[in-house]
């Protein structure tokens, strides 16, 4: 009886083993497949990251140089003097557009006809006369001489020189004509065309002409905006975190504050822009397009980040520190300001830097409060109209000229560099001051 049962048991056990063994191969295959799904997913995600950063680096790196043309410009005394006297004013009033055009035409004396002459003029940037003026104003002793000067080429020539314009396709499909390409080749043969370091891009504000547009105005705007944000959000964030973590009684009111902070962290950024438009611009009357208004809006947006990071940093300070301070007679406020806060400060600073980095990359709310305006002048303070780096990127991305693609990518590189620096400093700060209790 027992043998029978044992026999049946043995039978079924070996059956089971057989089934298991048969299944093992496919089960292991499934396991391997599963692992590869995971690896594939990570590869896809990281691949996108590489593609994103790589494509922008490739497109934007060429902005470091800018094509220049060397012109020989006559500076006749009579053009620069008024009643025979050369003054700063008379130098400033000279006809530089004419000077640049005539010296360019001197290089190609056989060009005739209005259309051809205009095509020739468009080789050089419309900002070149200003470059010439600034040069002569800085060196007034040059008046009366003939000088060789490197002036910016137009964006089309710049693009041609950098190889973005295909010279083999039919000329109706490209921005430069066959004749212009011929002149361009002659300029190169004469050694009158070369690429030089692009100071304009790093020192000037926005412009409708790609070759004169720079990132510095937007960088200044970002700086003023972030200053306002930091000055508002850091003290408010730290005091709020201290109150909620160290002093707040557990009641309905503090619960409400906590729920509010968590929800604010998840509100879409554009809603903060609507708040800024309706309250800060239309009710309080802060100036439109100014870093002040932008900074206030971004401060409200980053506040939750700073508070949450600040509370985590305070929580990490062990209770023994507080008890020791209280034990030797410090008040609760003294305990916090003398002992807990200094120990939590690195963590709070890390959180603030990360919050600032978020604010630096934010675009949408600033569009709502008019920071998307076209502004050529460099802002001189938080009340001047300005734009910020990501908005500048957005404005350039919307412009049709081919050369703006390069500017846009370069603007993104500058923005990403700032973000990398900020995030790295946050990481270093954490590493340097992290303490294990």
């Amino acid at each position, binding site marked *: 009886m027992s043998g029978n049962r044992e026999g049946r048991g043995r039978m079924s056990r070996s059956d089971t083993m057989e089934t298991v063994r048969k299944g093992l191969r496919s089960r292991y295959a499934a396991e391997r497949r599963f692992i590869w799904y995971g690896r594939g997913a990570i590869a896809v995600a990281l691949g996108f990251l590489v593609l994103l950063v790589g494509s922008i680096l490739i497109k934007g790196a060429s902005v470091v140089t800018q094509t220049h043309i060397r012109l020989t410009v006559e500076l006749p005394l009579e053009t620069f003097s008024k009643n025979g006297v050369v003054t700063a004013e008379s130098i400033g009033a000279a006809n530089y557009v004419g000077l640049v055009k005539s010296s360019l035409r001197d290089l190609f004396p056989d060009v005739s006809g209005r259309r051809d002459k205009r095509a020739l003029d468009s080789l050089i940037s419309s900002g070149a006369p200003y470059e010439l003026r600034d040069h002569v104003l800085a060196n007034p002793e040059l008046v009366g001489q003939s000088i060789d000067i490197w002036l910016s080429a137009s964006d089309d020539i710049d693009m041609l020189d950098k190889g973005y314009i295909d010279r083999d396709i039919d000329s109706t499909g490209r921005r430069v004509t066959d004749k212009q390409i011929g002149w361009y080749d002659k300029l190169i043969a004469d050694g009158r065309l070369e690429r030089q370091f692009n100071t304009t891009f790093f020192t000037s504000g926005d412009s409708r002409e790609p070759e004169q547009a720079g990132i510095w105005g937007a960088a200044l705007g970002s700086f003023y905006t972030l200053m306002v944000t930091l000055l508002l959000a850091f003290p408010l964030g730290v005091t709020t975190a201290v109150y909620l973590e160290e002093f707040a009684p557990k009641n309905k009111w503090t619960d409400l504050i906590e729920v509010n902070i968590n929800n604010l962290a998840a509100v879409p950024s554009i*809603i903060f822009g609507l708040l800024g438009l309706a309250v800060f611009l239309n009710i309080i009357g802060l100036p439109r397009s100014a870093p002040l208004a932008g900074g206030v809006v971004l401060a409200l947006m980053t506040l939750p980040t700073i508070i949450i990071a600040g509370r985590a940093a305070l929580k990490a300070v062990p209770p023994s520190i507080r008890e020791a301070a209280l034990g030797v007679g410090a008040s609760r406020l003294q305990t916090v300001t003398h002992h807990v806060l200094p120990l939590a400060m690195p963590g709070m600073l890390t959180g603030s830097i990360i919050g600032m980095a978020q604010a630096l990359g934010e675009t949408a709310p600033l569009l709502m409060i008019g920071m998307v305006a076209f502004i050529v002048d460099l802002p001189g303070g938080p009340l001047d109209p300005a734009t910020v780096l990501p908005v500048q990127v957005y404005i350039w991305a919307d412009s049709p000229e081919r050369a703006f693609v390069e500017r846009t990518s370069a603007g993104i590189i500058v923005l990403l560099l700032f973000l990398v620096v900020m995030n790295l400093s946050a990481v270093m700060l954490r590493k340097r001051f992290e303490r294990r209790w």
Partner: protein
Amino acid sequence: MIYWIALAALAATWLFSWKLGQGQARAIIAGGQRMHSLPGHYGSYSALWAVVPALMVLLIWSIFQPMVIDGMIVASLPQDKQALDDLFLNALVNDIRNMSVGNAVRDADDPVVIEAASLLGDWQMTSNILLAVLIAALVILGLVISRRQIAPELRARNRVERFVMVLLIMSSTIAVITTVGIVMSLLYESIEFFRRVPFYEFLFGLHWSPQTALRADQVGGSGSFGAIPIFMGTLLISTIALAIAAPIGLFSAIYMAEFSSPRARAVIKPLLEILAGVPTVVYGFFAALLVAPLLRDSGAALGIGIDSESALAAGLVMGVMIIPFVSSLSDDVITAVPRSLREGSYGLGATRAETIRQVIVPAALPGIVGALLLAASRAIGETMIVVMAAGLTANLTANPFEAVTTVTVQIVTLLTGDQEFDSAKTLSAFALGLLLFVVTLALNVLALRIVRKYREKYD
């Protein structure tokens, strides 16, 4: 400028009065008496008395001074100017202000403007002198009061600390005030909007074209505000984004939590989180410049017509952006599944993949759903990618190859550019904003509730 000087003066006052209070306390101690608090506390007490009232007056003054002076300027203008429309009156007052600080203005030779500008200059001078006198008086008064009060039995520390505590409480209410501000401003403008456009037409209308007529005789400019096409567009793009991000994020999370070595994980996780740190305007540029043309050309090669502003391009790139939201949160909930469940499953002979599929994912499901909901809320509220890569005109379709528009795109296009503030067109942006706020808030609350409920089960 004047306010910077005032602030510097206040800072100097702070130091001076602090020293004064501290010195007084020290003198009392030197006289052989025991004080309740340390000398520094008496310094702070005296400084608070000297500075805080003055600071408050400075703040209130700087808010109301321009308003009051503008009112006085308007009142001083001749009758015919006062009767001007608000818009022109504001422009005139602006001109007067510019004139008085020496900027070039349009009507520089208008005697009314010249006179008003000189009046303005006088009044501002008077106002500043008044302010300076008032502040000086308040500082001195504060110093006198604190000087009289400082005595051995004054509990200076407690009083100073109580003041600091009030400051702390006030700053912690900023979060609540912000929320109230958001809700109030959105509600106020939306109610204005719904007064012009019926609520049901907005929520259930099938036609969206917010162009309203500038002149009465303009053709076809009555504007229609049926938001269904915009909701559908948002839904379409967010669905595509989630369809990309959910599998990639989930499999990445599972791999990081269950298969990879701790060292690989320490590298992969921050790398994935970079995707969330890249500014959205960069994604927008990437979508518009690279992804959309690529999709259009490959579509053309396959014989499918894909718009260059297709929902697919925007959704795809948005999906990449929200991968880290899915992967990070899912990773957290997967690692939070107790070891015992895992080891029980291994003990029964399951492979790791089977354990994940049949034990861990079901156990972590509420958390994963929460992560997906949070990611969806991100996708719905995301602005720059769709502004740069999606269409502008409303299009009621479920075809991902066509161009659609979203709620956020409409808000941006309605509010950038010049328009008068209380037209139905502008107000509709606030109604859309209110809807966006409510939906994302609901998604977040729901997600957090699901996650929290799940946590209670295992802790």
